[in-house]
């Protein structure tokens, strides 16, 4: 969603709901996203996977350093090359990889910390909503390897028999050139 609409949308949806409901929704979503982050950082990948719907999409396009005149080319589009372009089955493969006992990039495992900030519910429609987050993922490995990834995340959250599930995640990383040996972690 283009930022320009951010405020308006937020506003419009604000009118739709009472502040009371919005606060409850905000609380519920924040706690859900915090718990989700804790599962990754706690290396509970299988439990994390269960938070995703079967039709989910998990996508991190490639960002490029471009001039303002080419700003529309800053991110690659759907269907083009990306860093992540996963569905449930490929996410499952990533988790299976980490459980395989021979996933060297994660053994010894990374120490990750997911910071979920500036949580904004920007759209509520039916049983789905769109949530924007400013995230920081801090990772250390071995004695000295240190990586920081920050960016904007757009999550699609769906209510499935009362419980919240993730059905979509778009990860707009700030880095163009990835300053790390790998991205063997989950965002």
């Amino acid at each position: 969603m283009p930022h320009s609409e951010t405020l308006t949308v937020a506003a419009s949806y604000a009118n739709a709901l009472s502040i009371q409901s919005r606060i409850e929704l905000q609380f519920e979503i924040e706690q859900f996203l915090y718990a989700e982050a804790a599962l990754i950082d706690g290396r509970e990948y299988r439990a994390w996977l269960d938070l995703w719907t079967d039709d989910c999409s998990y996508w991190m396009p490639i960002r490029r350093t471009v001039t303002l005149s080419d700003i529309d080319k800053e991110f690659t589009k759907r269907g083009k090359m990306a860093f992540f372009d996963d569905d449930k089955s490929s996410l499952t493969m990533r988790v299976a990889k980490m459980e395989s006992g021979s996933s060297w990039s994660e053994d010894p495992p990374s120490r990750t910390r997911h910071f979920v900030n500036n949580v904004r519910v920007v759209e509520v429609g039916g049983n789905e909503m769109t949530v924007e987050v400013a995230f920081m993922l801090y990772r250390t490995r071995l004695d000295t390897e240190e990586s920081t990834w920050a960016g904007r995340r757009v999550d699609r959250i769906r209510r499935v028999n009362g419980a919240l599930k993730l059905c979509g995640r778009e990860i707009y990383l700030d880095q163009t050139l990835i300053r790390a040996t790998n991205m063997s972690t989950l965002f």
Partner: protein
Amino acid sequence: MDAIHEQGAALGKSEIRSCFDSDTGTLDRRVFADEDIYNLELRNIFARAWNFMCHESQIPNVGDYVINYIGEDQVIIVRDKQGDVQVLLNTCRHRGNALCRAEQGNAKSFVCSYHGWNYDLNGDLIGVPGLTAYYRKDIDKSQWGLAKAAQVDHFHGLYFATLDPDAPSLHDYLGDVGRVGLGLLLAQGDVEVVEGVQRNIIDCNWKVAVDNLFDWYHVQYSHASAGIAGFMDIAAILHPQNQMVMLGEYGHAISGPAIPQDKQDFLDGLSDEERRALAANIAKESKGPPPPIRMKAAKELLGPVGVRSMGHPNIFPNLWVSTNGTQLCLRLPRGPFETEIRWYTVLPKAMPEDVKRQAIAFNTHLFGPAGMLEQDDGENWSQSTRASRGVKSRSYRHHMAMGLGHDEVMVDPSGQSRIETTISEHAQRWLYRNWMDWMAADSWADLKEDHSRVPEGRV
């Protein structure tokens, strides 16, 4: 920073020639961890070689440009008003500022953000603010255009450039093996680069990444988890009974699986339609994109031996043709201890959209920092590089003798020669043998004179 030999000791040729021992197949670790060797590599290898710049499809229109590197020299590759591709050093002739800071884009001309000197897309200096008022017309614009690569040429749309006017032509530089290597990418007809180059930094020496591309040996162990996870059948891609190595002058090589002669003979009998049908069938069963069964025309391009290759070519020094000829991987030196990795996906224009989408998804998940395979490579490479620095550790030479002395070079009537063998390290040895030639040469004249000839007989 660790200095391997005494600080400031000049780097003698004998010292260089001692780095790799062809008889025992062992390599001195200093080549991975020495500032002086690295600086010499920039001068003697990257500043002399033909370096990959881009594919024409990345800059289709006048003014389209991408940024790339020759060693650590940043260059602009741009399509000028004549439609020609120019390779210009990305540094203003006035005070050195970078003309382009974006990694890609479209420009009418290159205006420097410091004082506004304006360069035409072909590098000509066309605008100098205050030319009359400040410079009193006293500057010969023709002498102050952007610096250009000494030679620029392309092979079927794949652009290369060299900074050395004495370098041989691209065609001669590539030689048959280099052309076959690039040919694997072109064997399905005209290609284009898919939007999006994956780029990341691995803290390893660039050569560790390069010799790994020939390394079919590490796949089974390093990437076991991708198999267990069901991403791909690791064992199935190795074909240890059918490996073929082609060695080319100046260090090019191709190593990996090959189509057995009998299977190739069978394929040669099929029409293009029959081949497509076959590929489609196989695709149904297999995971991943359809197998790159080549069309009749491919044999022209690749020759009777090359057409059988399913291996990994390296265009010396640092361009890997990968993923059954649907990806290019460039390894750019960033000091002795860091390498920038670039992944390009290159697909036949004619490829059906749905197949394309499948191939793109597969390539996205295969390599790159988050790739199911590549994420396990980086730390091995960085640890190998790191262990080249310890006072004691660096005294132990790498073992690179797999298959040494056990194979035979076969020469085809067509003149194409190859080694038919199992998984081996012939290509890695060839890489470092040629690396020594390049490093010890004083000039292209010297290198042309004095470089390893493609071996014959026992290897």
